[in-house]
């Protein structure tokens, strides 16, 4: 579909129905009563172009592209303030995660969104050997925006790294090998199967 939902579709429920079908916990979006407590509770509130309650309204208004290309959901710190305060029991944290994931999956999430990149690195890191390799993750992270910026970041982060190494909370040896589970094969099979099931459930809109 093009930029925004066509005029004729505004405030009709097509995008809402898409979200209900394809986004984790999306069926809750319709239950929002626009009180705004989630928006006011987010620790990174000011960083959101559209806070959660506004996103819910945008979904109802049919603003598909504005929602899915927004960087807002990527600001979620998973602090769960919004969930515990929501008077309507909406699992807002999960809906935000779900929307981000859905946008990412559709390939229309903002390209250079740092959390999006980090999240991918993180997942790749953990799913490879079943456990997180903090050093490799860190290094990959420094270079996620390219070589030059990576070196800058690495230099800036160097004292921190040294502190961690000094206190034995990081080891350069981790780069070679490091932690992992035994049954990586089984884990990969599980994840592959889970992805297949999920992909099959996706509805076309």
């Amino acid at each position, binding site marked *: 579909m093009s930029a925004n939902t066509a005029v004729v579709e505004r405030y009709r429920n097509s995008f809402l129905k898409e979200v209900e079908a394809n986004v984790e916990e999306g069926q809750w979006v319709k239950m929002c009563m626009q009180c705004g407590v989630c928006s006011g509770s987010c620790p990174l509130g000011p960083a959101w172009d559209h806070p959660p309650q506004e996103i819910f309204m945008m979904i109802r208004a049919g603003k598909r592209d504005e929602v899915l290309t927004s960087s807002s959901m990527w600001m*979620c*710190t998973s602090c769960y*303030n919004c969930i515990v305060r929501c008077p309507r029991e909406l699992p807002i944290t999960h809906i935000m995660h779900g929307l981000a994931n859905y946008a990412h999956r559709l390939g229309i999430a903002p390209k250079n969104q740092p*959390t999006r990149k980090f*999240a991918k690195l993180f997942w790749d890191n953990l799913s490879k050997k079943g456990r997180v390799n903090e050093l490799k993750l860190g290094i990959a992270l420094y270079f996620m925006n390219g070589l030059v910026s990576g070196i800058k970041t690495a230099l800036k982060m160097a004292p921190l790294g040294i502190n961690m190494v000094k206190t*034995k*909370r990081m080891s350069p040896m981790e780069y070679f090998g490091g932690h992992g589970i035994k049954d990586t094969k089984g884990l990969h099979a599980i994840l592959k199967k889970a*992805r297949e099931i999920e992909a099959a459930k996706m509805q076309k809109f």
Partner: protein
Amino acid sequence: MAKKEYSFYPGCSSQKAASGSNYQVSVDSMCDVLDIQLNTIPDWNCCSASIGYAEGGELPRLALSARNMALSEQHNAGQDIVATCAACWLATRETKDRLLHSEHLMKETNEALAAAGLNVKANQNVRHMVEVLIEDFGYDALGKHVKKPLEGIKIAGYVGCQTNRPFGIQGESFENPKYLDKLVETMGAEPVENYQKKVSCCGGALAFSEPEKSQALIKDIIEAAYDGGADMIVTPCPVCQMNVEVYQDQINSKYKTKFKMPVVYYSTLMSVAYGKDFKQSGLDGQVIAPNKLNAIAKK
């Protein structure tokens, strides 16, 4: 008292030479005193924390925690699953709740697990170590083991997010949980009353991708601890611990502050109070030395 056994989910950060390795050291010391036996779930995997959502999606993410639960059910049947990491605990407990709430998620998850010959029932309790301490022992029992009361130390109990929300500790409020303060008191130290940033988010999940934003949050957390006259901060979460402790240099250079606020685990406090030494208490893992605590540990 009889030995208490739990099915233990340590989590990635607790591994050797990982950011929370000192947490594990102090937990071990504390468990030793309390006669707790932690039976590690064999071949446990990462929970993917909360940040796993973007690439992982719903079912793969649930499958990760479900695999741990399946292994625990298989090997540590009849025991409660206990995690020390807030993110691990939350991801696992959330998975359990979601699976029990939704038949189709349970079915699909088991379909996925079947690819590795596993099956999950989600029938074990999933608990944070703090819950074990408070509910299975209680403050009085925990206090009985104190050999070196942490006198003269004022401590800000920083509960953070994920040990607190959305589940939290039974009987505590989301906005003003008091269990860390009570633990601090039990260990003979003085809690900071009404520590204003007690449950504020440190931005841990975005520490790497949005460092400025998360460090702005950390700054407020530390500032409020200083306002309350704290000598150090105590926390039950490895993400919080690392995040609040290790970026202080960067924060100082950005905000022209002079922060040097130690951030310790509850288990470190307890180990010291229980008479464990500097290393056993994980104090060698502190980037910013909690001098008053070190002094007691070295006494």
